[in-house]
């Protein structure tokens, strides 16, 4: 069921994305909105840097003790009347969830936003089993109508313009007045609210993700702005939480620490509108809430990342700040990355989860500008982790041959300063002579990757070292 990655075709994907005018228009909203809002929120909180460091340390502590906190969490979920299921793979997770839905005779399943459910291809599995899966986050709802995957981990429809959304709503909401005005976002939102309200009330099962799982209490925590996650979990008879194993935090206090950096990094809010702790099913005296509470804990490759150079990636709390600040993401959007997780976090995580053979482009498609790391709320050294993937690719001879040989030749000269001096002096003097009129090259056979898009400045003449030595000699004379 897992989404088939188009990541091996990353360059083609990027090519298409760069030539898609609607996408380019929509991407402008990412660059403007998120960055400014995060910056304002951070400036309003002098303690932010201390919080980042504490958040990093907390997540590291959890990862080093993950087995023990998972045991505690499991025990406390059961104590509060819930059930815990473990899944090694996507297929196992889907099967578990489908079976829970079937056992309750479910026909309709509502879903809050969950990236891990995208990762395991849950909607496809639910529908293949003859049930309806309804995404309820506005952005997720829109892309579900379009048969797309999210292009951003917190703003799934950020690649779309309102005009595109209008077309989809008119195509799908055929029971509504055709002449209605849908030209503004508020009209689109109101329409989705109306359509989805009935879906919430009709659902048999509600599935949400989890931002955090609290070991101390067995609670799952979700944060949303729309309230869809709350309607998803409060109205149906069954609430299923799907979460990956690294979402565990020890205590509620620890969850609060991470909440302080999460929304600020994501949307520039101090807190998301709704932060909800769910612990077990409804109590005997409760007039509302789900009667059954299940948690499905998904590994799907994460336990294998522990203890490796990629362990730091498991600190990720899925805020999206890295992609919001990434020049590559700004240029091509999220779909070009070809799988579930885009941007810098996706560039590290995707090869871990689908294999570097398929995901190998992503850690290479970075300028290493470091802006992602500078805004990461849990201080994941994203460029360093991308470099580690490049190392693995190099070791396994997955690096493209041209690049390998180029590096080899360059490395040979660089390690032999005498030869290097001879070769570079000859080359630069020749190039300088060739480029003497224009001061640049508009095309060079061996540098097409460069000169297809920009000129290559021509060298000034002899190398600096040669000129320096000459001047030193002259000065000594």
């Amino acid at each position, binding site marked *: 069921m897992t989404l088939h990655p188009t990541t091996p075709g990353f360059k083609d994907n*990027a090519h298409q994305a760069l030539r898609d005018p609607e996408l380019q228009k929509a991407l402008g909203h990412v660059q403007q909105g998120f960055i400014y809002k995060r910056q304002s929120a951070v400036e309003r909180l002098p303690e932010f840097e201390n919080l980042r460091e504490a958040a990093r340390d907390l997540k590291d502590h959890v990862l080093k003790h993950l087995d023990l906190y998972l045991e505690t969490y499991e025990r406390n979920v059961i104590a509060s009347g819930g059930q815990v299921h473990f899944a090694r793979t996507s297929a196992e997770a889907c099967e578990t969830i489908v079976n829970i839905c079937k056992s309750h005779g479910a026909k309709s399943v509502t879903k809050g936003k969950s990236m891990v459910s995208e990762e395991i291809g849950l909607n496809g599995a639910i529908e293949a089993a003859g049930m309806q899966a309804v995404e309820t986050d506005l952005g997720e709802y829109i892309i579900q109508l379009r048969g797309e995957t999210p292009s951003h981990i917190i703003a799934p429809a950020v690649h779309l313009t309102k005009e595109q959304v209008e077309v989809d709503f008119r195509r799908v909401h055929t029971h509504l007045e055709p002449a209605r005005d849908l030209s503004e976002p508020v009209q689109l939102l109101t329409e989705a609210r109306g359509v989805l309200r009935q879906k919430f009330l009709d659902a048999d099962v509600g599935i949400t993700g989890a931002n955090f799982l609290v070991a101390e209490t067995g609670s799952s925590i979700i944060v949303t702005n729309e309230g869809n996650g709350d309607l998803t979990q409060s109205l149906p008879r069954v609430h299923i939480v799907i979460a990956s194993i690294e979402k565990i935090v020890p205590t509620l206090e620890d969850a609060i620490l991470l909440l302080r950096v999460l929304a600020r990094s994501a949307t520039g809010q101090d807190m998301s509108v709704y932060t909800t702790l769910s612990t077990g099913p409804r109590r005997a005296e409760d007039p509302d809430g789900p009667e059954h509470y299940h948690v499905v804990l998904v590994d799907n490759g994460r336990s294998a990342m522990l203890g490796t150079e990629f362990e730091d990636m498991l600190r990720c709390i899925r805020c999206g700040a890295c992609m919001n600040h990434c020049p590559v993401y700004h240029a091509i959007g999220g779909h070009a990355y070809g799988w579930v997780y885009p941007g810098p976090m996706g560039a590290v995580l995707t090869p871990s989860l689908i294999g570097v053979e398929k995901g190998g482009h992503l850690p290479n498609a970075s300028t290493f500008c470091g802006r992602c790391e500078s805004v990461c709320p849990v201080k994941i050294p994203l460029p360093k982790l991308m470099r580690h993937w490049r190392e693995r690719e190099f070791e396994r001879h997955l690096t493209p041959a041209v690049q390998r040989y180029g590096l080899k030749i360059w490395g040979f000269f660089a390690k032999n300063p005498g030869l290097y001096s001879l070769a570079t002096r000859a080359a630069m003097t020749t190039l300088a002579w060739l480029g003497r009129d224009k001061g640049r090259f508009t095309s060079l056979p061996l540098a097409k990757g460069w000169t297809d898009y920009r000129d290559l400045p021509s060298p000034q003449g002899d190398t*600096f*070292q040669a000129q320096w030595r000459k001047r030193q000699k002259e000065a000594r004379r």
Partner: protein
Amino acid sequence: MSPASARPRVGLFATCLVDLFRPSVGFAAAKLLEDAGCEVLVPPQTCCGQPAFNSGDRVTARDLALQVMDAFSGCDYIVAPSGSCTGQMVKHFPELFDEPQLAMRARAFAGKTFELVSFLTDVLKVTSVEATYEGRVTYHDSCSGLRELGIQSQPRALLATVKGLELVEMKESDVCCGFGGTFAAKYGEISDAIVTKKTAHVSESGAPLLLAGDLGCLMNMAGKITRQSKQIEVRHVAEVLAGMCDEPPIAARKEMRR
């Protein structure tokens, strides 16, 4: 500092790109260092190894790191007119060695290695330069210098003391220009989209001269600017600070000289 002389012995690590493409930046750096009272040495050198390091070839990166540390072993300081190469030497050389002896050596080397402009201001406490440039300039913060080394205020502080110079900030001066070393060639199309945004911001600033502290970024931006036929000159910040703008700007023909 060597005991024989009060002047610090500064090894100038020119960087490959300056060595090969723009020696005038090396001479400008040497002048700034000498004016600030340093004895400048240029040991035979090739590359800091960053291209290998960032391509996943740690073996070559280690060999080159050792070669650089050997070549500059007699210097009190190592200074480079590049945040990127300095970042490699300061932040990444120590990551390359697990052997305690070598790691210690790499850390010691990193401790005396600096980017040119921040070395002038932060170590030598230079507060002004003797240079004149009539006109407006805009400054691009190269990523490694900015985020690995914290270089942001230093070049602006010294530029403010250049007679006749007015610094106008472009929008998003701290956003990548799309160079990224081999990225620019491997993912040329994406790189192009990024540098196109950058040159638009440069244009919007209205400044006729673009400065930065890294020749890689400068060659990328200058190459785009000439390809777009924009009338903007591009130089390394050291050239302006040293008052050495005799050579044509980057990627410009001789008659474009001011």
